[in-house]
């Protein structure tokens, strides 16, 4: 599938600018994500990390610049945009499982309604994915009956069910009780090992060091620093990053 893909990056952001009213939240962002790469985005609150993530599947529109996904500019609307979104998985901080649907239905909704997959095949695949994230036994429960960590693992299975080219994670573990963080990170590390292209907003340094190829430090709407995880955490170049790291390392 990616035989000739190594050369062209999967995602390319070129001079991307984004405003919320007068607030300039993304300032001339230039960033590429290669196929199979795991990119961790880190930075202070309000720096624009979520917004950056959400522009890639166009949950947020941009005011200026270009985003190229898999060789094509992001479609603006309609069916083409829906198709793009089906190829880019997203895992939210607050899980956002469909509250009126069972765990299994959460995972099969996209494949049956977007991909028009037959119900049997979709069910079978859903069970495989739920098995993979360790939730198969809960398939007939509803989201509210599961713990946060379990819900987030289902959310990952829901994203995987679309066979996405990439998955965006926006602080997937920050709404979780501490004892549930690792179970979710373990699933994500597994995905990274299997070659999934991932963009992960997280402050989990352990994950960044074990799974990331690159860390992007964002503050005030700008990419301030980009480096390998080891270099970034042990030898940050900018004062802004050093200052930020000293804060997250000391608490």
């Amino acid at each position, binding site marked *: 599938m990616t035989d000739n893909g190594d050369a062209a990056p999967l995602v390319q952001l070129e001079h991307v600018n984004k405003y919320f009213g007068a607030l300039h939240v993304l300032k001339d962002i230039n960033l590429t994500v290669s196929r199979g790469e795991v990119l961790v985005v880190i930075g202070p609150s309000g720096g624009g990390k979520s917004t950056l993530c959400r522009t890639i599947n166009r949950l947020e529109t941009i005011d200026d610049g270009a985003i190229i996904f898999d060789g094509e500019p992001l479609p603006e609307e309609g069916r083409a945009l829906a198709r793009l979104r*089906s190829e*880019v*998985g997203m895992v939210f901080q607050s899980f*956002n499982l469909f*509250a*009126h649907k069972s765990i299994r239905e959460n995972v099969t909704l*996209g494949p049956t*309604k977007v991909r028009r997959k037959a119900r049997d095949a979709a069910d079978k695949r859903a069970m495989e994915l739920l098995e993979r994230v360790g939730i198969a036994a809960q398939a007939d429960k509803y989201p509210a009956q599961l713990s946060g960590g379990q819900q987030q693992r289902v959310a990952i299975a829901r994203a995987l069910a679309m066979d996405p080219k990439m998955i965006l994670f926006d602080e997937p573990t920050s709404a979780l009780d501490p004892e549930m963080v690792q179970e979710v990170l373990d699933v994500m590390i597994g995905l990274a090992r299997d070659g999934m292209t991932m963009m992960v907003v997280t402050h989990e340094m352990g994950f960044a060091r074990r799974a990331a190829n690159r860390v992007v430090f964002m503050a005030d709407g700008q990419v301030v620093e980009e480096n390998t995880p080891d270099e970034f955490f042990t030898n940050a170049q900018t004062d802004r990053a050093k200052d930020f790291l000293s804060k997250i390392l000391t608490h």
Partner: protein
Amino acid sequence: MDELIEYGPELFSGFTKNLLLSVLIAFFSLAVGTILAAMRVSPTPVLRAAGTTYVNVLRNTPLTLVLAFCYLGLSDTLGLIFSTEVPLTNSFWLAVLGMSAYTAAFVCEALRAGVNTVPMGQAEAARAIGLTFFQSVRLVIFPQAFRAVIAPLGSVLIAMIKNTTVVAAAGYTVDVAAVMRETFDTTGVSIPIFIGIVLAFLAVVLPIGWYTGWLSRRLAVAR
């Protein structure tokens, strides 16, 4: 008491017409109200404006005026005729049309209140897996919104059922209220007849209130 027994069959036959009207209007108003609500939450400005205008006009016009407009305006003047042979059949469908149009505005607003109870994240997750706007409304937003407003929708239906007693304004003069007035012309005002009709409505409306209350608890979406 004697009048009630004597005129009971006619009154009952009138009441069945109210029931038939109610069933048809419930069906059409739920369907149209749902479409209106989808228009009002859609990202397309034209659809939103059309939905908003419709709701504001219909919801703020007295029902008897809506019905009179259907009867005298739409039918007599503009020539919308459901049956040329039987005037009562024509006015029956005009009453269904007018009351469905009117009730749909209330259904729309109840449902829209339900949409507001559905967290933003649900719509975002729906879009993020590639559902189109209308798919996410149909498969994710509305099913949760409906469950949140079953009880208020029950109230809308109950109000509608009681409102069927003014369909004479559309020329449909054989419902229970019309039969009652006709009976009073011959018997004089009869308290037992009043009470009989009230009890008949209670027998229909109370269970609807109970049932929708029970259903709303049973189907409540746990978050």
